[in-house]
């Protein structure tokens, strides 16, 4: 539309341009002018949206197929430039153009609906009047026909003295989005709503009908009678049902859905339904001024002396009966004035539908059910500006010529900035406010008043839902603001379903309200809100807000939206189960103490209400600074539980105020996630008893202590130590289990299979010196000498410390590669292993790789490099670059992230655990790759990483605030990630840092993931050796299965542990191991550890306590098997105490193949079918032989192999 309007302005310019072109290049211009003419022809007969489509297709067809040889015409140029300037990019515009027709009704299928509406009009106008009668009598008459009258609260009683009646409607109009042609398809296949406003004749009403729901009763009877008339009519073949928006019986409407019969007015194909909404005429006797938010229109018998309590929600429910026509007109005017209004509204509603703000069968955000008009009002507010509220600045109107995308963005911008809690919004009106603006603010939670200045469209929408909306708008804006091209932005914003609880909320709590008994229930509140169930939910929302305070950015209540009900059911069914979703504010969420009023508070009522709210949790406390304050303290047993505080508060509030004692009534999933990264009880008990300093803090203290000791040795060393950098996951908060030392004194108390002591790696760098030998082999020897010197010096300097030189790893025998290290066990039982970084190695290795010596121009014929030596150098360089260049800076970046984002390290730990429990971590996916992958969901575009964390402005909304959400987000990423495209993670805050590359000849390895950072442009450093294609696909499949499992949350049947249990059916054979021989078995996901030795009081004497730091025979066996049988099978295991290996044969080996000397697998000759057959010399994989070899290699560890078919 925008384009059409604009084109009119440009109309006179274009021909001139084309003429100019044709002067230059006459032969080419002919087709062009034709083209333009065609366009102009279209212009003549068109002007509405479909025509626009046609014109674009015309220009389209001319350009497609062949390469564009002509310069663009003026028209094309304008379209192209518009797309660039008015939209995010031209692709974005084209994508929007492709999206819009998909959410609009198909024009070709509308005709039957029109015929149906005509028939319906006839039926309604011909309905027979019903004489005035007592409401209950009338209801009894109708119930005989199977139609219940949806009387709302307060129900009419026998002694009511007014009557209900029916007369044929005084007017029938189409209202809502359908007549304005701005309907947008709903979520979950819900139908287009065609709203039909049926005006009830004014003579049915009296002035006092606004009181005590009398209007609603009359309306209900009118609706029921209409239902009867439609059901009885022969000409209409429809199903008639009731539906109440937000389950509010006052807002009941009739829903007509066609039955499929192929008759001319069967509009099933259109996927639409007709809703009949009774409305009041403008001339009705009900006085408008009685409906302002502050008026009280419900009188409760018995308390006539009390001051009348305002009934804002009741009043606005009544006002909705007056509004539809006004809305229709104002929206129409808006649409006429602002050409892109329709498209912008469609974008906004698609965006909102994808996020559950609207109807749908999955979890929808409370309050937005049946609130379609609000989106139009919102855009109206932006376009026409805000009515001034007396003081303060008012919002300036936006221009009318904005593109749909700009308008959409403006709406998101408004939503992300506007604070509905503090500020009311009023759309600009013609003649000022009708009711005082303060009244709205005083009586409604959130206010957005439409252009007629009567109705607050946000009446009854909980603030928490709006906070969530704000959060979602922020998230989307953050995405739109990033420049990244890699991710599919359009799909993220409009096409992707975003209603998943687990990635949306930091804490999800499932509450079964069926047994809720509110402590305080106010009859008045119930009457104002319209039904007890809605009153209950709204008080849950209010109390949770009060309890959580500034801990959360949003508290949303979600449940499936309202559905239709048969005519025999008067009142809507309410959902029993609601979900409470919290989005944490990371700065406040995990506070342990809530302060209340001071003890010397003059007004006792304040302290009283505080105590009343918290119950026995509230206690008077004296603080260090001398204040005595009412406070609530949340006790936690471990650091893990700190993240539970918000959930604990929700639980407490629901316990106290709604009597939900049943443990099944309130369900949350945090505990399950905590459990999988916690050491088993048997082990942790030993440590808590011993008083040893454990955890990440303990590990870092030990590290710092060791560094100090090392620096203190400077006099005794030939070179002084320049730097010590840690490169271990235990020292950057990302190891799955919190690290524990293993002092000699404790070891005997621990079970044999819980005595694994990981050794933490670090890198030593000495000052530069010319004395280093210029030979790789000699350098390795010098390192040994250094280690020996450090070891003896350390042992004399520190008592209890044990240092050993480790001369290799037993596997790699290349003598030019860095392989020796120094192993240190501190007196407290922490193990470290140190390596020496000498930067000259890189140059020497490069020389070997490139085959150049110091003098490139001289040919030393004797030094012609050998293939083998070069290959060794490539391998050594790869190890060197990864270990000495990438590992230390990766470590620093990750450690910094952990300080920046509270949920980062717990998320990494969970994800590592998940990958490990599915047998791919370590063997196929490196720990560092996981860390960067997890970082990708936290760092965004990395821009704010460089900002000083002290003065950070605001956390981005897309940053998970809890490990559960982080975990779900990573799973979603793994599920959707196209690893073929790679992933860029600005881990270092976007700074360009040295890009040390691994030698290119090493990059022909199996790994397919590409995780790039600023320091690693190829993205191969951490993924060089895996996962390969098969494993990467397997991870994707596992992520998908886990994602579906997480969906189980919505039915309340998620068992967290089941996510971490690995299915072993797919393996060809499974090697079982003796759990008693595994030092890490305690870390197994479902380890069953014996609680103690034979005698509870005696330390075990079952074995000598030789401490072997980092000794894990299962891992060594796994590495050996992986290496030895690299081409025979793929092997998988859980590095954390897994007691099984699973393996898959290389399928190509199962076919007999010709015998070769270097076959690389253990083959058995194929048996001849008969003697005559010629020997073909074929061999086939000797499976049984290989399995026996595995058993022999793992003697003492392997206790059986199961072959699966």
């Amino acid at each position, binding site marked *: 539309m925008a384009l059409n309007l604009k084109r009119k302005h440009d109309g006179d310019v274009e021909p001139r341009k084309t003429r100019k072109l044709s002067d230059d290049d006459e032969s080419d211009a002919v087709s062009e002018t034709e083209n333009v003419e065609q366009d102009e022809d279209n212009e003549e007969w068109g002007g509405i949206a479909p025509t626009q489509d046609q014109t674009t297709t015309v220009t389209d067809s001319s350009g497609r197929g062949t390469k564009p040889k002509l310069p*663009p015409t003026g028209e094309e140029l304008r379209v192209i430039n518009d797309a660039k300037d008015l939209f995010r990019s031209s692709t974005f515009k084209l994508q929007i153009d492709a999206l819009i027709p998909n959410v609009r009704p198909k024009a070709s299928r509308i005709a039957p609906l029109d015929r149906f509406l005509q028939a319906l009009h006839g039926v309604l106008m011909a309905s027979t009047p019903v004489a005035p009668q007592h409401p209950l009598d009338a209801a009894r008459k109708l119930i005989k026909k199977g139609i219940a009258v949806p009387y709302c609260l307060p129900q009419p009683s026998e002694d009511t003295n007014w009557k209900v009646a029916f007369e044929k409607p005084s007017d029938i109009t189409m209202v809502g989005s359908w007549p304005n042609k701005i309907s947008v398809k709903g979520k979950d296949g819900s139908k287009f709503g065609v709203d039909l406003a049926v005006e009830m004749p004014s003579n049915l009403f009296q002035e006092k009908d606004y009181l005590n729901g009398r209007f609603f009763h009359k309306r209900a009877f009118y609706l029921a009678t209409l239902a009867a008339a439609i059901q009885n009519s022969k000409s209409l073949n429809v199903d008639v049902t009731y539906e109440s928006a937000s389950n509010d019986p006052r807002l009941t409407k009739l829903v007509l859905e066609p039955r499929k019969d192929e008759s001319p007015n069967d509009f099933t194909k259109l996927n639409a339904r007709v809703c009949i909404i009774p409305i009041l005429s403008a001339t009705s006797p009900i006085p408008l001024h009685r409906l302002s938010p502050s008026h009280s229109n419900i009188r409760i018998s018995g308390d006539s002396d009390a001051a009348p309590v305002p009934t804002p929600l009741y009043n606005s429910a009544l006002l909705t009966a007056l509004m539809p026509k006004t809305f229709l007109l104002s929206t129409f005017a808006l649409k006429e004035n602002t050409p892109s209004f329709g498209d912008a509204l469609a974008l906004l509603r698609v965006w909102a539908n*994808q996020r559950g703000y609207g109807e749908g069968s999955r979890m929808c955000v409370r309050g937005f059910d049946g609130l379609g008009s609000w989106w139009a009002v919102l855009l109206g507010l932006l376009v026409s500006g805000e009515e001034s509220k007396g003081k303060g600045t008012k919002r300036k109107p936006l221009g009318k010529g904005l593109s749909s995308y700009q308008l959409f963005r403006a709406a998101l911008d408004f939503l992300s900035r506007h604070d509905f809690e503090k500020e009311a919004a009023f759309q600009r009106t013609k003649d000022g406010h009708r009711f005082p603006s303060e009244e709205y603010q005083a009586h409604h939670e959130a206010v957005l008043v439409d252009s007629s200045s009567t109705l607050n469209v946000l009446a009854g929408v909980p603030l928490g839902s709006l906070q969530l909306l704000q959060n979602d708008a922020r998230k989307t804006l953050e995405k739109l603001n990033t420049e990244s091209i890699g991710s599919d932005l359009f799909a993220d914003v409009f096409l992707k379903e975003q209603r998943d609880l687990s990635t949306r909320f930091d804490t999800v709590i499932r509450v079964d309200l069926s047994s809720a008994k509110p402590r305080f229930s106010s009859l008045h509140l119930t009457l104002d809100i319209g039904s007890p169930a809605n009153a209950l939910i709204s008080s849950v929302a209010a109390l949770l807000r009060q309890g959580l305070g500034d801990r959360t950015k949003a508290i949303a209540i979600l449940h499936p939206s309202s559905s239709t009900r048969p005519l025999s059911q008067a009142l809507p069914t309410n959902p029993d189960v609601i979900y409470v979703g919290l989005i944490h504010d990371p700065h406040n969420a995990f506070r342990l103490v809530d302060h209340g009023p001071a003890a010397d508070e003059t007004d006792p009522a304040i302290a009283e209400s505080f105590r009343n709210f918290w119950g026995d949790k509230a206690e008077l406390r004296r603080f260090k600074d001398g204040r005595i304050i009412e406070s609530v303290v949340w006790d936690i047993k471990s650091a893990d539980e700190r993240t539970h505080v918000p959930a604990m508060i929700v639980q407490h509030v629901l316990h106290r105020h709604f009597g939900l004692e049943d443990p099944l009534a309130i369900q949350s999933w945090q505990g399950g996630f905590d459990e999988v990264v916690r050491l088993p009880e048997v082990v942790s008990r030993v440590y808590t008893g011993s008083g040893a300093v454990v955890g990440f803090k303990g590990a870092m203290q030990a590290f710092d202590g060791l560094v100090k000791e090392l620096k203190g040795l400077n006099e005794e060393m030939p070179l002084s130590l320049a730097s010590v950098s840690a490169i271990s996951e235990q020292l950057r908060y990302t190891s799955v289990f919190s690290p524990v030392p293993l002092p000699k004194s404790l070891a005997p108390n621990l079970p044999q299979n819980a005595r694994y002591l990981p050794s933490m790696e670090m890198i030593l760098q000495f000052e530069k010196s010319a004395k280093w030998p210029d030979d790789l082999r000699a350098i390795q020897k010098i390192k040994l000498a250094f280690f020996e010197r450090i070891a003896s010096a350390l042992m004399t300097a520190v008592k209890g410390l044990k240092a050993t030189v480790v001369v290799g790893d037993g596997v790699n025998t290349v003598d030019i590669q860095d392989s020796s290290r120094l192993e240190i066990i501190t007196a407290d039982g922490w193990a470290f292993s140190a390596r020496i970084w000498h930067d000259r190695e890189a140059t020497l290795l490069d020389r070997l790789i490139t085959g150049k010596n110091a003098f490139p121009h001289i040919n030393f014929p004797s030094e012609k490099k050998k293939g083998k030596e070069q290959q060794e150098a490539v391998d050594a360089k790869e190890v060197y670059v990864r270990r000495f260049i990438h590992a230390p800076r990766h470590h620093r970046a990750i450690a910094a992230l952990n300080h920046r984002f509270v949920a980062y390290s717990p998320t990494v730990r969970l994800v590592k655990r998940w990958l490990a429990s599915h047998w791919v971590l370590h063997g196929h996916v490196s720990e560092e790759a996981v860390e960067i992958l997890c970082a990708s969901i936290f760092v965004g575009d990395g821009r704010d990483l460089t900002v000083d964390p002290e003065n950070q402005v605001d956390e981005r909304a897309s940053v998970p605030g809890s490990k559960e959400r982080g975990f779900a987000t990573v799973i979603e990423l793994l599920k959707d990630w196209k690893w073929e495209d790679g992933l860029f993670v600005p881990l270092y805050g976007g700074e360009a840092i040295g890009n040390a590359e691994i030698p290119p000849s090493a990059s022909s390895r199996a790994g397919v993931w590409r995780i790039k950072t600023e320091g690693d442009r190829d993205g191969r450093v951490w993924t060089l050796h895996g996962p390969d294609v098969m494993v990467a696909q397997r991870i994707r499949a596992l992520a998908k299965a886990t994602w579906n499992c997480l969906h189980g949350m919505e039915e309340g049947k998620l068992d967290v542990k089941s996510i971490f249990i690995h299915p072993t059916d797919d393996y060809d054979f499974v090697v079982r191991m003796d759990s008693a021989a595994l030092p890490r078995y305690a870390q197994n996901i479902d380890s069953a550890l014996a609680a103690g030795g034979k005698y509870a009081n005696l330390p075990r004497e079952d074995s000598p306590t030789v401490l072997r730091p980092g000794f894990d025979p299962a891992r060594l066996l796994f590495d050996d098997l992986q290496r030895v049988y690299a081409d025979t099978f793929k092997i998988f295991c859980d590095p954390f105490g897994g007691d099984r290996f699973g393996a898959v044969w290389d399928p190509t080996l199962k076919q007999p193949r010709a015998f070769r000397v270097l076959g690389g697998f253990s083959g058995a000759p194929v048996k001849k079918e008969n003697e005559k057959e010629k020997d073909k010399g074929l061999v086939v994989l000797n499976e049984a032989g290989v399995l026996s070899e595995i058993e022999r290699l793992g003697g003492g560890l392997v206790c059986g192999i199961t072959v699966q078919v």
Partner: protein
Amino acid sequence: MSLPSSIAGFSVLPISYTGTSTHYLYARSHTGSKKNASQTLPDGRTLFLVNVPPDATERELVLLFKGCGTVEKVVFDLDPQEKLVEPDDSDEEEEDEAEEAVDETEEQPRKRRKLSKTKPQPPKVVPLPSKPLRRLRATGRSAHLVFLDASSLERALAPQPKARPWPVSEEPSGVAHYAALFDSLRPPLDIVRTHADSAMELFEFELKQTKQQSKYRKGEAIVDEDGFTLVTRGGAYGQTLGGGVGVASKKFQESGETRTRNKKKEPLQKAGFYAFQKAEKQRNDLMELKKNWEADKAKVEKLKASRRFKPY
């Protein structure tokens, strides 16, 4: 149905493992090419074995073929490219060591020592202590067995009526292997020290040797085949090992390229000097614009075809 007794010129030797499974060795007599007919693998009494079990030790192979004759030595995974420079005076004990993983590190210097058989005598490297350990090789690799006499070879290649059991040598396997390996990688500190010191001594010694042997002396110019003298960068105090006068820049030495002084050359002509250039440029820009637009359009069309734009 029977097993072929030979396959592609190899005789099949079934070996029974504990339990019911059978492993197959493929054997052939070794025929070295004439060029490197060395004494290490003498023709006529060397057996070439394929598909050796990954954990096989020399002892185990010796035991396996005990029935056929005395085995002189075993060589695993002979790299055909690499000429075997085994010392001819190899005695039994040294051979054993060559098999061990730990030992590999100091094998190299010793070889060199052997190569440079000149006076003065090079210093000896004190070896790291070693325990007999298995070395796991990749599966399906080969080995050479040298018998004492040729008749044993024939006996070894004769078809086997029954699978021979796989012998077990005293080297630990399984968990015990890993524990032993772990311990043997951590030798006592004093031995590490003497080993490192002696290795460094040897290195210094060799450095001196190469310096003496080097074609180029300090202060002498490096002249290549064509008679050009390389002028290199000087080391400390203007002296290089086997180098000339120090002038060549480091970059030149490494890459062989001279520094390009003025990187950006001024274009000969100004871009928008003539009117037609301007017009052409404008036209090209527009064309580019249109091309991108068409490309975008095609992309979206493609996405549309895959039903990407149905939001729900």
